[in-house]
C-alpha cells in the first residue's frame, strides 16, 4: 500500500489532498457531500479579527473554464469563529489549517496567539494574498512585509505556519524566499489572479466590487508555472493550488514541485472530488512506480536540448 502521508516541515498530513480556504465554507456546509475524515486537511474560510459583511453582490461570475469572485472576506469575526466553528472543525478527524487575514502584524499576532491555545489546530495559513480587500494584499506583494508578518506569527505560536501567496506580482520567487527565510513551514501557491468581467450593453462591471479573483481550470497552467519557478529556488515545501479538477491535475502539481495540493473551485461544482482523488491516488502513484508521494515531488524531467 502506497504511503500517502506527507510532511511540510513541522506539519504532517495523512494525505496530500486539502480543500482550499473560501471553497469549503466552514466544512459543515459540505456534510452531505464529503467524508471529512478521509481528507488530508481542511482549510476553512478566511477569518479576520472583526466581522466583515463582505462585498456587494454580484460576488461571482463564471468566465471561460473559470470564475471570478469578489466575496470580500465575508465572515463573522475571529471570536465567533473560535467559539462556534472551531470546536466543530477540530472534531472532524482531519487536520485543520486555520486561514487568517489581518491588516497589521499585530492583527496576525493576536490571532496566532489565541489559536496556539486551541487544541486540534494543525497549522495556520496566512492569507496575505486576497485580491478583494484593501489592506491585506500589500503584505503579499512586498518581500519584506511578507517576511515581517510571517516572523510575527512564528514568534506568537508554536504551530506550523503556511504563507498563502498571491500570483499578482512580477515574480513570486522573491516573496517565497522571504517568507521561507522568516520561518514559514510551507507556502501555498497560489491565490487567485486579479481579473475583471464587463457587461458592455449596460456599460457596467459584472461584479459589485468591479474587480475579482480568477480561479478554476483556466488558471492551472499559470499555477504550474509559478510552482515550478518557486520550487527551483526555494527550499520549503509548496502546497499547490490552481484549477485542480482531477487526479491527473494533482499528479502534474506533484511533478513540478508541490508536496501537497488544495482543491478549490472544483468543490463548488464537484463537492465529492477531493474524496475521489484520494481514492485514485494510490493507482496514479503506482503508474509511476512510486511508493509514496514524496518519491514523485519535483521529479519532472526536462529533456536535454540538442
Amino acid at each position, binding site marked *: 500500500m502506497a504511503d500517502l502521508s506527507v510532511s511540510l516541515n513541522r506539519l504532517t498530513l495523512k494525505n496530500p489532498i486539502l480543500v482550499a480556504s*473560501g*471553497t*469549503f*465554507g*466552514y466544512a*459543515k*456546509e*459540505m*456534510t*452531505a*457531500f464529503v467524508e471529512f475524515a478521509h481528507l488530508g486537511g481542511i482549510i476553512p*474560510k478566511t477569518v479576520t479579527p472583526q*466581522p466583515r*459583511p*463582505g462585498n456587494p*453582490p*454580484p*460576488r*461571482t*461570475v*463564471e468566465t*471561460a*473554464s*473559470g*470564475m471570478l*469572485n469578489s*466575496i470580500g472576506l*465575508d465572515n*463573522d*469575526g475571529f471570536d*465567533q469563529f473560535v467559539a*462556534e*466553528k472551531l470546536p*466543530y472543525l477540530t472534531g472532524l478527524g482531519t487536520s485543520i489549517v486555520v486561514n487568517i487575514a489581518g491588516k497589521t502584524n499585530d492583527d496576525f499576532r493576536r490571532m496566532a496567539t489565541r489559536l496556539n491555545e486551541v487544541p486540534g489546530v494543525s497549522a495556520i495559513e496566512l492569507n496575505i494574498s486576497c485580491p478583494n480587500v484593501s489592506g491585506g494584499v500589500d503584505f503579499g506583494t512586498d518581500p519584506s512585509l511578507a517576511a515581517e508578518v510571517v516572523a510575527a506569527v512564528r514568534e506568537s505560536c508554536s504551530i506550523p505556519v503556511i504563507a498563502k501567496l498571491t500570483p499578482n506580482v512580477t515574480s513570486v520567487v522573491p516573496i517565497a524566499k522571504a517568507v521561507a527565510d522568516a520561518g514559514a513551514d510551507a507556502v501555498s501557491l497560489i491565490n487567485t489572479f486579479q481579473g475583471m468581467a464587463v457587461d458592455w450593453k449596460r456599460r457596467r462591471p459584472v461584479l459589485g466590487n468591479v474587480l475579482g479573483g480568477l480561479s*478554476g*481550470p483556466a488558471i492551472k497552467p499559470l499555477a504550474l508555472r509559478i510552482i515550478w519557478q518557486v520550487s527551483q529556488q526555494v527550499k520549503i515545501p509548496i502546497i499547490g493550488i490552481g484549477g485542480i*479538477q482531477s487526479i491527473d491535475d494533482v499528479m502534474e502539481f506533484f511533478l513540478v514541485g508541490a508536496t501537497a495540493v488544495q482543491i478549490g*473551485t472544483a*468543490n*463548488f*461544482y*464537484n*463537492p*465529492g472530488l477531493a474524496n475521489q482523488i484520494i481514492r485514485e491516488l494510490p493507482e496514479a502513484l503506482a503508474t509511476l512506480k512510486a511508493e509514496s508521494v514524496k518519491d514523485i515531488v519535483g521529479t519532472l524531467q526536462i529533456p536535454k536540448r540538442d
Partner: protein
Amino acid sequence: MSEYSSTLPGMMLCAKQHQAKIVAVRAMAQDTWAVKVHAPELAATITPGQFFMIRPATGSDPLLGRPFALFDIVRDAAGQPTGVEFGFVKVGKMTTLMSQWSKGDEVSVWGPLGNGFPVPECRHLICVAGGIGQTPFLGVIREALGLESYGIPPRSITTRPQQVSLCYGVRSAGYLAGIEEFTIPGLDLQIATDDGSTGHQGYVTQLLQNKLAQNSDGVHVYCCGPEPMMKAVAEICKAAAVPCWLSLETPMACGFGACFSCVTKVVEPDGSWDYRRTCVEGPVFRAEQLVL
C-alpha cells in the same frame, strides 16, 4: 451574522451528488425549455420551492452548476418517483447547451437544496408568478390541493386552503409555459400579459390587488419572479397585512453554502441588515426579512 446552527437547515442533510442521465428535453414555450432528469432519490426527497444544481458530467466550460427549482416530479407506471423536471429560459451559455441536451446525456446533479415554500396553512393561497418564476408553483399548488405529497416523510397539511389561485404574468402569450400542467380542477388560474395577447393586459400585480380587494382574510401569498415584480408584490401584501413569501434567484456558484456568492440583504433583529446566503437561508424568505 447568523447563528451557526441556522446556516444548515435540516433539508440539507438529505442532499446528495448524483451522476444522472437526461430522460427528455422539450420546448415549453417561446425561448423556454423543460428537461427531465432520471434522479429517483432527488425526486423522492425534494419539496416545492427547493432547488438543485445541475451541470454536464464532464468538461469545464461551462464550469459551475446552475440552480433550478423543481417543476414536476416524474413518476413510473407504479407512481414511484423516478426523476425531476425543471424549466428554464434560454439566456446564456449553459441554458443554450441545456436546450440541446438529449436523452441519455450524462449530467451531474446535486440536491435537494435550500428551504422551499412552507406547507400552505391558510384559507386562500395566492401564488404570484412572473416569467419562468411559475415553475416552483406546480408542486406548491398540487400539494395545496391535496393532489400530491412531497418529501420523506410526506409533508402533511392540517389546514388545507379552501381556495388556491395562481396569478401568472408574462410578456406575451407565447411565453406562457406549462399551461397544460396548470390546468387543474380546483385551481383559479389568472393570466396577465404585458401586450394583452391573452388574459389581463398589464402587470400581474393588478390581478393580486383584485383578489385582495375581494377578500384578504386568511390569505397567504407565495411569489417568484423578477425582482421589481417581487418588490411590488411585497409592498401590496404589506399594505393589505397579508403574509408574503418570496423565492429569490441570486447568482450562485455551489448551491450549498460554501462559496458565499448568493448573498442578499436580510434584516437583523436590531433593524440593521447583513448579507445572508440565499442558498442555505432561502431561497424562500418572508418578504419582511428582506431589504429589496
